[in-house]
């Protein structure tokens, strides 16, 4: 302030910078900018000085060097001669896998529990209530560890629980299911499936236009379902079922063949799904309760049948309330999957942020890359959210 008073005699009064509205915002923004630049400069400067003092090499070259370690679950080809970069991608795919599987299961469970919570069966509603409260109030890390411990207590591989006449094996080495072995001619099935999906989209648009113009309603949902599921199945049968199943057999140590869901994957998947499902259940409950009774009554009085009322009146309105918190739950699930490191599931935090970081010592680069990956997940989700909010915004006329 004293600085400003000293300049009062001059033509320009410095204090106008923060007392007058038109200058004030620019003035403060310049200060903020200056502080931010100073902070960044401070950090970068220190980092460089520290790295130089330690004689540590810096850069992302390590990503091209061989990793020298093995990863048990890799969706793409990988062995210990592959690079650290490839190891990171393997981890990224594993993160994606557990996130997608988790989101699917959590959604199914969450919607089921949310509906059951509103059920008029008192015992059921109470059980779900206890489940929701117990799950929501215990740290997810502990739940992952508990699930992992539970799975480890299953019978050993040699005494595996066998079901579906010797094709499925459940043990503490995981769940082994028959692996699909496509034979020549199988390619037709996914192609037909794609064609069916495209056809369904086109048909839906056409049916909507017809309805807008003439009021005629086609059973769009039924036809589309039949097309998308039926056509590939038909193709599969016509081409002579060109798919065989590889059933696992007990080898010397492990079950050989088939597809195995490892215990680490299962523990993480189940723990994240059940944890997130508790939150989703509350979201769903709030969503359903947010649609007032009058909406149903109004729909009935217009002569809509109960099924159509639910589909066309209740669900769209409930979804507007449900989807935004639901997406943020999906994002939470993806971020929580980074806790895989506690039980040894090889997600990106365990490969890039774990073994690679330890072996190369490039902590700075590895952690930054890791953050960038999660950040891009989050930004993609935000973009979707913004689009959805815009799309379903209440239009007041």
């Amino acid at each position, binding site marked *: 302030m004293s600085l400003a008073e000293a300049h009062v005699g001059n033509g320009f009064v410095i204090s106008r910078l923060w007392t007058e509205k038109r200058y004030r*915002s620019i003035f*403060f*923004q310049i200060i*903020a*900018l200056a502080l*931010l630049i100073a902070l960044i400069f401070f*950090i970068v400067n*220190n*980092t460089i*000085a*520290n*790295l130089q*003092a330690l004689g540590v090499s810096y850069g992302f070259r390590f990503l091209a060097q061989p990793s020298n370690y093995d990863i048990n679950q890799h969706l793409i080809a990988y062995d210990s001669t592959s690079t650290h970069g490839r190891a990171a991608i393997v981890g990224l795919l594993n993160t994606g896998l557990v996130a997608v599987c988790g989101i699917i299961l959590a959604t199914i469970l969450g919607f089921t529990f949310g509906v059951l919570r509103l059920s*008029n*069966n*008192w*015992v*059921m509603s109470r*059980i779900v209530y206890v489940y929701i*409260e*117990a799950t*929501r*109030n*215990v*740290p*997810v*890390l*502990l*739940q992952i*560890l*508990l699930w992992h*411990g539970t799975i480890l207590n299953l019978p050993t591989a040699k005494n595996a629980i066998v079901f579906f006449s010797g094709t499925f094996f459940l043990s503490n080495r995981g769940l082994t299911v028959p692996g699909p072995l496509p034979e020549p001619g199988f390619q037709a099935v996914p192609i037909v499936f794609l064609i069916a999906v495209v056809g369904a989209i086109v048909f839906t648009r056409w049916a909507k236009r017809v309805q807008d113009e003439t009021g005629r309603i086609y059973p769009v949902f039924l036809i589309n379902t039949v097309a998308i599921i039926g056509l590939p199945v038909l193709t599969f049968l016509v081409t002579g079922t060109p798919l065989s199943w590889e059933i696992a057999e007990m080898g010397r140590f492990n079950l050989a063949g088939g597809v195995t869901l490892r215990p680490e994957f299962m523990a993480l998947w189940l723990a994240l799904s059940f944890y997130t499902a508790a939150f989703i259940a509350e979201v769903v409950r709030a969503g359903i309760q947010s649609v007032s009774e009058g909406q149903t009554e109004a729909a009935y009085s217009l002569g809509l049948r109960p099924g159509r009322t639910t589909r066309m009146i209740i669900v769209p309105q409930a979804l507007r309330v449900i989807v935004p918190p639901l997406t943020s739950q999906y994002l939470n699930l993806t*971020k*929580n999957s*980074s*806790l895989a*490191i*506690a039980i040894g599931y090889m997600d990106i*935090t365990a490969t890039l*942020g774990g073994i690679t970081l330890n072996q190369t010592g490039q*902590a*700075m680069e590895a*952690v930054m890359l*890791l*953050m960038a990956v*999660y*950040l891009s*997940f*989050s*930004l993609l989700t*935000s973009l979707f959210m913004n689009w959805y909010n815009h799309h379903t915004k209440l239009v007041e006329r």
Partner: protein
Amino acid sequence: MTDAPYQVGQHPDLPPPPSTTGVIGWMRNNLFSSWANALLTIASVLLIYGLATSLYKWGFANADFQGASRNDCTSGGACWALINVRFGQFIYGFYPESQRWRVNLTFIGFLVALWPLLFTGAPARKQLLWYAGVYPILAFVLLLGGFGIEKVETAKFGGFMLTLVIGVTGIAVSLPLGIMLALGRRSDMIFIRAICVGFIEFIRGVPLITLLFVASTLLSFFLPPGTSFDLLLRVLIMVTLFSSAYIAEVVRGGLQAIPVGQQEAANSLGLGYWKTMYLIILPQALKISIPGIVNSFIGLFKDTTLVAIIGLLDPLGIGRAALADTKWQGLAGEVYVFVAILFFIFSFSMSRYSLYLEKKLHVGHES
């Protein structure tokens, strides 16, 4: 009754049919309203019974509560002797045994400071609020020592006490920070808004564990060469930044709920930005946000378990260290269940409180 002809006039109310009232009626309505419902009820009762008995057998009937090592646990159930022997560590970490009264005192002081904040009906609220303002300094001195009290370094902090220290400090410091961020995000100044949005979205976009990696491995690189400070302090900084971003979003929700007319009215009275915020907008916005803030506190509280991954000894870390002792190996289940119960008690009571608040605030709005 049937014989008597109906007479116009007053009749005593007949009781409702016995099948719709009392226990039986309630059960008919809520448990056995249809065949499917009845089956569901029976199945779930059986399920609960099975779970409860096996848990009871493991946790109580066949459990051992006394003993000096795992070999003393012979009954086949849970071995709570580990928890029994190391209970002090689970609560206080490695805080010197002779000094643990200080932790207790801090905790009691914390409850007293919390009282006027949580319950508006507390007596002598004004004085207590003053006390709540001074409390952080008191707690700091009590826990760390100085001023004639024996000093205790933060490496000795651990157990549930560490959880509380991280959780409470995190939320208390992040609250003002979060409010500033929320205001910044709604500001007209484009650049300030950009900084705030960038910060909030960055923090919310990455998992806490990566931020803790930064605290444990990278933060010292960002400071002038040779500076190094306490790991706990670094973790506190990161946890505070983390939770401030979430608080900011909660507060922003509160701000958005305030009708724009309030702002316009304040402006037309000639109030400046800060006065408008301080006197008009924030009191209303914060009131709406309190349940959300409590919820993010619960979230933060649960997330503190992650510090075990970077080597701080929260209850989970203490448990893991105990399991490394050859005397106690193999008792992971007991440790996890115990820590889970510990967290559940705290989180659940807080979520109950948040519900109570929501109800109270709701009533306040309608009257």
